[in-house]
C-alpha cells in the first residue's frame, strides 16, 4: 500500500488501472480529461495492458464502450457535462443492453450559459437511464468507488452500467492523500472479469439490443432493468462490507456525519458541505450525504430522517420549472411516512458557485424558524449580497445595468 497525493481525476485513473480494465474508448472534455490522459500514458508506457482509442464523440464513445462490454471485456470510460448530454441516447441504449461498464462523470454545469464549473445537472439528467450512480466526496472515495463499481455492475443480479461521479474542479483538481491499494488485495476483492452472460463469439451467434413489438415485451425488459437496479441496494451492502473487510474503509449508501444527536439535518451529495459554523453556534446540526443516487436508498433516507426537527435538501442542480431534483425525490420517499420531518428546499452551488459558511448559516436559521412556525418556505436560491452586487456590476459592463 502506497500513500500519494492525488487529484480526484488521478484517483479515478488509479482505480481503473487497479481494476485491470481491458478497453477504454475516450473523448476529451474538461474537467475529466486528466483521467484519460493518465490512462493513455500508462498504456503507452506498458504499465497497463489495455487498448485506448479516441473516438469521434461521446455518442460514439458510449456506443463503443457498450459494444465492447457486450463482447466480454472490462470497459471504462469517462466524461463530463456536455459530453454526457451528447451521449445521452446511448446511455439508455447500453443500459438496455445490460452491459457492466463503469463510467466516471466529473460533474460540470450544462450549457447555456456554457461553463466549466461543477454542478449536478449533468449527472442527474442521467438518473432515469438505467445506470447506477455513486457520488463521491473525497479522492480516496473516487478510487475505492471505481473498484466497488465494477463489482456492482458485473454482479449477475445487476448487470447494468454504473457512474462514479465527482465534482469538477472542487474534487477533480484537488489533491488529497490517497492510499493506493496493493494489486493482490484488489484482485481478491475484484477478480479479473470473466463474463457469465452471453457474449459475441463465432460459436454463439445471437441478436442483442434488438427491436421489440408491443408494449408488454417492452415493459417486461424495462421493468427488469428497474428490478435489477433496485437489487443494487442489497448487493451494495454486501459489497461495501466485503470492501471494508479487505481495505478497512467503510462506505455506506447514505453517509451520516454528526447525525446521532442532530436536530437539524442537511442533505447533500458530493463535496460542498460544512457544518462547522452551525455546530460552533451550538446548533445540533448533522449532514446526510447521499452516496448512492441510483438505486435510490429510500429506506436509509427514511430511517435517517426520523425524529428530526427540520431537514434541508441542498440541490446543486435545478429542474427548471420545478426546482431541486433531490428534494422532490426525498419528499417522494417521505410522503407515506406518518412521522415525517419538515423538508426545506435550497438550490445552491450552480455552475461551481461557492456555498459560503454564511449561506449554510442562512439554511440553519431557516430550519430553526420553520421548526418553530411549522411553515415551510418555498424553494430558495443561495446567492449572497456580494454575489448579487458583482452580478449587477457585470450587467452594467454588458450594457444591461
Amino acid at each position: 500500500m502506497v500513500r500519494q497525493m492525488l487529484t480526484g481525476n488521478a484517483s479515478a485513473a488509479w482505480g481503473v488501472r487497479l481494476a485491470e480494465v481491458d478497453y477504454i474508448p475516450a473523448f476529451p472534455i474538461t474537467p475529466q480529461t486528466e483521467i484519460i490522459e493518465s490512462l493513455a500514458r500508462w498504456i503507452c508506457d506498458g504499465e497497463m495492458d489495455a487498448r485506448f482509442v479516441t473516438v469521434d464523440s461521446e455518442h460514439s464513445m458510449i456506443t463503443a464502450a457498450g459494444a465492447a462490454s457486450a463482447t466480454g471485456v472490462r470497459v471504462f470510460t469517462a466524461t463530463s457535462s456536455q459530453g454526457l448530454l451528447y451521449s445521452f441516447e446511448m446511455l439508455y441504449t447500453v443500459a438496455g443492453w445490460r452491459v457492466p461498464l463503469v463510467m466516471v462523470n466529473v460533474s460540470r454545469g450544462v450549457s447555456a450559459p456554457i461553463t466549466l464549473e461543477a454542478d449536478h445537472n449533468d449527472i442527474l439528467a442521467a438518473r432515469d437511464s438505467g445506470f447506477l450512480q455513486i457520488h463521491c466526496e473525497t479522492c480516496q472515495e473516487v478510487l475505492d468507488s471505481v473498484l466497488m463499481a465494477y463489482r456492482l455492475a458485473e454482479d449477475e443480479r445487476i448487470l447494468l452500467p454504473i457512474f462514479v461521479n465527482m465534482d469538477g474542479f472542487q474534487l477533480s483538481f484537488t489533491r488529497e492523500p490517497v492510499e493506493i491499494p496493493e494489486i493482490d488485495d484488489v484482485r481478491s476483492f475484484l477478480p479479473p472479469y470473466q463474463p457469465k452472460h452471453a457474449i459475441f463469439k463465432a460459436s454463439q451467434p445471437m441478436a442483442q439490443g434488438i427491436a421489440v413489438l408491443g408494449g408488454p415485451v417492452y415493459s417486461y425488459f424495462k421493468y427488469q432493468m428497474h428490478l435489477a437496479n433496485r437489487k443494487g441496494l442489497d448487493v451494495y451492502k454486501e459489497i461495501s462490507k466485503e470492501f471494508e473487510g479487505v481495505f478497512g474503509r467503510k462506505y455506506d449508501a447514505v453517509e451520516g456525519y454528526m447525525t446521532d444527536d442532530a436536530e437539524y439535518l442537511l442533505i447533500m451529495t458530493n463535496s460542498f458541505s460544512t457544518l462547522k459554523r452551525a455546530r460552533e453556534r451550538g446548533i445540533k446540526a448533522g449532514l446526510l450525504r447521499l452516496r448512492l443516487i441510483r438505486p435510490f436508498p429510500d429506506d436509509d433516507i427514511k430511517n435517517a430522517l426520523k425524529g428530526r426537527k427540520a431537514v434541508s435538501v441542498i440541490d446543486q442542480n435545478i429542474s427548471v420549472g420545478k426546482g431541486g431534483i433531490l428534494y422532490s425525490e426525498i419528499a417522494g420517499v417521505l410522503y407515506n411516512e406518518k412521522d415525517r420531518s419538515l423538508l426545506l428546499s435550497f438550490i445552491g452551488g450552480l455552475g461551481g458557485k461557492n456555498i459560503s459558511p454564511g449561506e449554510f448559516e442562512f439554511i440553519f436559521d431557516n430550519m430553526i424558524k420553520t421548526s418553530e412556525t411549522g411553515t415551510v418556505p418555498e424553494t430558495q436560491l443561495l446567492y449572497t449580497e456580494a454575489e448579487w452586487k458583482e452580478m449587477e456590476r457585470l450587467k452594467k459592463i454588458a450594457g444591461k445595468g
Partner: protein
Amino acid sequence: MNKMPIKSIKDLPLEENLLPGTPMCAGCGGLLALRHCLKALGDKTIIVNAAGCFTLLSIYPFTPFRNSWLYTAMASAPAGAQGVRDALDILIRKGRISPDENLKVVVLTGDGTAYDMGLSSTSGAIYRNLDFYYICYDNEAYGNTGFQWSAGTPFGSKTATTMPGRIAPTGAELSKKNLFEIWRSHKPPYLATISPAHPVDLVNKFKKAEQFKGPKLFISLAPCPPGWGTEPSRSANFAKLAVDTGIWALKEAVHGEVRHTLVPKKFKPVEEYLKEQGRFAHLFKPVRQEETIRKIQEMVDGYWKEVKSQESGVKSQEMI
C-alpha cells in the same frame, strides 16, 4: 466457393445466412443485396446495425440471420463496430477466447444514416483504419419512416418531404450527395458500389475485399417498391436499369484508386429508368418536365465523360 473471381450466377455460394421470413416489404432491393453480401461474408459475422428499415429484421424473439446482430442507434453503428472489433482482438490476444471465435464485423445502415447522421462516426472508423465492413443499402430516402428526403435522394425525386407542387414542381432540388467520394477521400483499402441485380459483381467485390485489413465499404442501390412507386416483382429490373442507364455506376476503389467494374456498351436513356417509377412520374405528367429530364441525362453523361477521360482503359462490359 473456390474459384475467384466467379463468372456466373451458377458459381454463387449456395449457403444462405439470411433466411426467409423477414418483415421487409415485398421486393426490397436492399434485402436482396444483403442476402448476397452474407453469402460472400459467411456466418462468422456480426452485423452492427443503425436505425433504419433493416432494424426490423431482428424482432424479439426472432432473427433471420445465422450470424450475430447488434442494433446500436442511428448515428453510431461504426463506433459499435469499433467496440466489438477491439474487444474481440483483446480477448484473442489475451487468450480469453480462441482465435476460432473471431468474427467479421459488419456495419449495416441505410442511406439516411450513411449520408448524414452517421458520417462522423463512419469517418472516425475509416480514419482509424478499423478492420470492418460497411454495407449501405441506399434506397435514396428515409424509407423506414415513409420515404422522406435524405441526402441520398437524387435530383427530381418525389419524396414525402419533396412533394412536387406549384412552387417546386421538380421534387428534390438537390442532387445526391457523393458518399463514394467522401468515403474515398479517407483512402480506405477497399470501397465499392454494388447492385442487387449484379450478384456476380457483388460477390466478387466482397471476395476481393477480404484480402484487405481495414475498412471495406460498400454502397448498394436498393430499389424500394413502396417509396419508388414500383412493382415489387420488378426491383431487380430497376436495379439493372439503373446500371444500364449509367445512373448507378458499378465501381471500386482500392486504396483510393477508382476502377469501373461494369460499363454498359451502350447506355440506355435515363428516361427508361425514370418513367416507370412513381417517384419520377411528375416529370412526365401531367406536363412533361423536359428540362429536368434533360438535366438528369446531362448529369449522367457528364459523369461518364469524366470517367472516360480520367480512367484509361475503361472497356465496355468489363468485369473484375
